C-alpha cells in the first residue's frame, strides 16, 4: 500500500461533492462528514450499500435523495450480504460483458454492524469480497430512539440501558470491531475520527487501494443521542481521541500503527462531562464504574502500544 497518495493538508481534498444537502440528518450530525470524505477519497466509479439506520432513512425519503452515486438499501442486517452480491456480480459482468465495475462501499451504523449485521459482515470478510466496509459508530441504535447496541460504551445511558437508581447505565463492554475484523485475516482495518480529517482521508484512500475487504470504524458524534450542543460535535470527537477512549490506529498487512499518538491523555472526566449520556458517571455513587472504565481505557491503550511495538 506504499504507493497510495496520502494528503497532508485539507486543501488537497477534492472539491467535488457527491453528497447533497437537503437530507434530514440532525443538525450537527457526525455522519455526513464521513460520507463526504469517503466519496471524495475513493477514486473512480463507486456504489454505496447502506444498512437501515440514520444515514439511510434521512438521506433517501422518496422522492428526495442526497446521493450522487448509485445507492442501494435492502434491509437492516444484510448490507454486507447485498454488497457481496453486487461485488461478485460486477466481477463477472466486467469479465463477460465489459460492464464498468464500481468500488463497493458499505455504510452501516453500529447496530447494523456489531449486532444484527454481524453475521453478514463476518461472512463477507471470510469470503474476501472487494469492499470497503465502513461502520459509522454513534454508539447506540440512534434512528429508533437511542437504544443500546453492542457498541455502546460501558457506563453510557441509553433508553434500554438507562442510568437508573439500581443499574447506572450499560454494564457490558464495547465489542472491538477492529480486532474482530483482523481475526478474519483481512489486510487493512482502521479507526477514524472527524476531528482528524487528514488522518481520515488517508485511511480511506489506503482502504480503497486494497483489492479485498477492508473495515473502517468511524467515531460518529451524535448530539441528539449523547445529549450535547450540536456546535460542539468536533470538540467531543477530539476529546475522545485525546483521552485515549478512541485510539486512532490502523492495521495494515499484519502491522499495527497508532496514527495519532497521545502522549499526555486528557482526563476522561472532561470527555464525560460534555455529554448527558455520561454525566451520571461523575456522581460519587458511580465512582466504581468510572474507575473500571478508566482501567479498561488504559489496558486497551497499552495493548495497542504493545501491538504497535511488535509491528
Amino acid at each position: 500500500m506504499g504507493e497510495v497518495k496520502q494528503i497532508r493538508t485539507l486543501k488537497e481534498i477534492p472539491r467535488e461533492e457527491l453528497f447533497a444537502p437537503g437530507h434530514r440528518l440532525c443538525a450537527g450530525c457526525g455522519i455526513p462528514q464521513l460520507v463526504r470524505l469517503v466519496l471524495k477519497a475513493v477514486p473512480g466509479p463507486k456504489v454505496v450499500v447502506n444498512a437501515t439506520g440514520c444515514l439511510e432513512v434521512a438521506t433517501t425519503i422518496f422522492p428526495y435523495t442526497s446521493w450522487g452515486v448509485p445507492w442501494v438499501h435492502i434491509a437492516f442486517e444484510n448490507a454486507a450480504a447485498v454488497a457481496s452480491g453486487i461485488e461478485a456480480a460486477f466481477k463477472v459482468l466486467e469479465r463477460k460483458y465489459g460492464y464498468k465495475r464500481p468500488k463497493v462501499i458499505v455504510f452501516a451504523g453500529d447496530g447494523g454492524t456489531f449486532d444484527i449485521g454481524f453475521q453478514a459482515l463476518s461472512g463477507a470478510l471470510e469470503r474476501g469480497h472487494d469492499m470497503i466496509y465502513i461502520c459509522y459508530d454513534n454508539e447506540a441504535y440512534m434512528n429508533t430512539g437511542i437504544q443500546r447496541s453492542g457498541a455502546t460504551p460501558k457506563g453510557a445511558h441509553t433508553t434500554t440501558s438507562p442510568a437508573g437508581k439500581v443499574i447506572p447505565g450499560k454494564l457490558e463492554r464495547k465489542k472491538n470491531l477492529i480486532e474482530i475484523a483482523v481475526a478474519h485475516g483481512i489486510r487493512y482495518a482502521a479507526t477514524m475520527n472527524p476531528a482528524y480529517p487528514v488522518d481520515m482521508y488517508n485511511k480511506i484512500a489506503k482502504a480503497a487501494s486494497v483489492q479485498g475487504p477492508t473495515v473502517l470504524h468511524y467515531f460518529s458524534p451524535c448530539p441528539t443521542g449523547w445529549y450535547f450542543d450540536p456546535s460542539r460535535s468536533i470538540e467531543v470527537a477530539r476529546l475522545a481521541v485525546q483521552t485515549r477512549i478512541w485510539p486512532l490506529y490502523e492495521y495494515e498487512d499484519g502491522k499495527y500503527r497508532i496514527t495519532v499518538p497521545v502522549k499526555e491523555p486528557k482526563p476522561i472526566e472532561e470527555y464525560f462531562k460534555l455529554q448527558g449520556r455520561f454525566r451520571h458517571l461523575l456522581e460519587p455513587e458511580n465512582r466504581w464504574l468510572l474507575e473500571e472504565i478508566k482501567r479498561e481505557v488504559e489496558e486497551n491503550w497499552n495493548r495497542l502500544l504493545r501491538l504497535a511495538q511488535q509491528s
Partner: protein
Amino acid sequence: MSEAAFAPRSWRDLPLGNVIPLPMTSLSYKTGNWRALRPVLHKEKCIKCLLCWVHCPEPAIHRHEDDSVSINYDFCKGCGICANVCPVHAIEMVMEG
C-alpha cells in the same frame, strides 16, 4: 451542483422498482428553515483553512476556486459547528429572524 427535478404525481408515473431515478434530488428540499441560529461569516478574518468546509454536515458551505468560502442559507441548519471549529473566530452565530 445543479438541481434535478423528479416529481411524480400518481402511482401511474412511478419509476420501475421504486427507484429514485436521478442523483441528488434532495437539493429541492430546503432545510434552511430548520435554523434557530444563523452563521455569519466575517470574510476579512477568514484564513481559508477550509475547516468549516470539511466539517459542515449538510454541506452548506461552498468552497470557491480560491479556497474562500460562503454559506448556503437554503440548507444551513444552524448547528454551529463551523463557528466552533473556526480557528480565527471568523464565523459568528446570531439569532435567526
